[in-house]
């Protein structure tokens, strides 16, 4: 029986432009099939029918040969959680155990969610800042699916979605940023305010609501109607470039003034990650951030983005348990976490 394993997704490989600040770029297009109720209001029968229609559109097609089909109902809670932690599916889909399904491309850069809030959520996620490429990936599968399926589309409103906040392009573009310098120097609050004024949503990556942990911030477009896909992308680009510049300038200023402290912090982080025996995910995320900053400033050379991204994901509860091969409660996870971190670091740093 096929199972979800802990593998590295394409976005985790640490490549891509601006990867010292931008961890990943993601695009998600929401689509629905004409003539079928949206999943929230549809009967079991109808969602099953939609799943069948979409499966028929991709089964045996050469363009989808490198995709694996996963049914949510056949995956364990742990496997689904792992997919969420790797950003391959939404928490919403993970809960859709009746007729929710996932088509996942082998490199895990493209995931097509079926019977999420909309019939289709086509997602692409790539490392670094590459919004156009990410949209090209998602758009390609959008076109392929559209050639087989009739989408719910209205000339005035665009692609019709269950939630009015997604209507129009159905496109959500987002970028995951590592902003330790702006957060350390408390410039972040200004920035968050400014971003929300230009129609962008800012969230902490990990954490409920809008908590920022590990200096990771997600920025995404709020408006989906009235702008073209290119406009959405270029708006986001221009803002992200400014954020990157500010972060870089602040990093340089910190480096000029506090080089020894930053190096100390990074090396201490590495020491703790390698030798600590009990560790919460919050502490781990913070340490990984300290280490990443040290690496990006050239103060520590023994790690790289790929290792750091791998650590960032494997410290999560689902991934940890999957790696351990058994269910673990919170305190057991706090023991397993440093063990897995050490194992990974040892493997890479030999």
């Amino acid at each position: 029986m096929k199972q979800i394993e802990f593998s590295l997704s394409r976005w985790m490989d640490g490549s891509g432009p601006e990867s010292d600040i931008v961890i990943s770029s993601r695009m998600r297009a929401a689509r629905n099939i004409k003539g079928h109720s949206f999943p929230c209001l549809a009967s079991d029968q109808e969602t099953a029918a939609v799943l069948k229609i979409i499966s028929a559109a991709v089964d045996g097609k050469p363009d989808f040969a490198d995709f694996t089909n996963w049914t949510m109902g056949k995956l364990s809670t742990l496997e689904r959680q792992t997919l969420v932690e790797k950003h391959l599916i939404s928490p919403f889909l993970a809960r859709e155990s009746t007729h929710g399904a996932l088509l996942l491309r082998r490199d895990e850069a493209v995931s097509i969610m079926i019977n999420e809030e909309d019939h289709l959520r086509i997602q692409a996620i790539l490392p670094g800042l590459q919004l156009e490429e990410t949209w090209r990936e998602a758009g390609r599968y959008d076109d392929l699916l559209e050639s087989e399926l009739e989408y719910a589309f209205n000339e005035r409103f665009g692609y019709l979605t269950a939630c009015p906040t997604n209507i129009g392009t159905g496109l959500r573009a987002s970028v995951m940023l590592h902003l330790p310098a702006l957060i350390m120097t408390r410039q972040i609050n200004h920035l968050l305010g400014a971003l929300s004024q230009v129609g962008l949503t800012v969230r902490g990556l990990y954490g409920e609501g809008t908590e920022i942990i590990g200096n990771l911030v997600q920025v995404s477009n709020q408006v989906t109607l009235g702008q073209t896909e290119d406009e959405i992308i270029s708006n986001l680009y221009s803002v992200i470039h400014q954020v990157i510049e500010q972060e870089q300038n602040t990093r340089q200023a910190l480096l000029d003034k506090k080089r020894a402290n930053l190096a100390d912090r990074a090396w201490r982080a590495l020491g703790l990650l390698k030798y600590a025996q009990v560790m919460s995910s919050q502490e781990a995320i913070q340490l990984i951030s300290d280490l990443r900053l040290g690496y990006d400033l050239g103060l520590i050379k023994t790690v790289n983005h790929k290792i750091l991204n791998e650590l960032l994901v494997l410290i999560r509860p689902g991934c940890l348990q999957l790696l351990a091969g058994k269910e673990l409660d919170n305190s057991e996870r706090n023991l397993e976490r440093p063990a897995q971190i050490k194992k990974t670091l040892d493997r890479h740093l030999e």
Partner: protein
Amino acid sequence: MILCQECRRNEANIHIIKNVDGKQSELNLCEQCARKKEELDFSFEPQFSLHKLFASMLGQSVRGSREEMTAAAMQCPSCGLTFAQFGQIGRLGCSECFSAFEGRLKPLLRRIHGSCIHSGKVPSRAQNRVNILREIDQLKEELQVKIQGEEFEEAALLRDRVRAMEGTVQEDLTEKGDPQ
């Protein structure tokens, strides 16, 4: 050294910034205290507070006057969702809901997106129609400019072109048996 806000003894090496409704607050905790907090919930999809906002906005607008009572009772003929239900769940039920609630949805969409007209990608099946409709919109704008500039002859020509084009879109509708 920043002290932990919980125990005020250890160094706070975990910094959590909260941003609730535009107000930022910072939480500085030590490792032990942070560990007591629950495991973090990872999520990649932006959680829009907008969802709740417009649900409440609709909730208000459908209460009160008789006209609004009627609006609340409006029902999508296809999926059966009423406008009042839409106000509660913040989700539409099917593609026909958009025709059924069009008049009420437009102001809402304008409030969320600052626009209620799609200008992005179009499925290839719908491309022809959309091209014509977008051209009609453009011609209508030009028409207004001509009228304001008192260039009535050119305005008349434009008006005829718009009518002719609207005619082809209409025919297109009947041919395809599109309910709209």
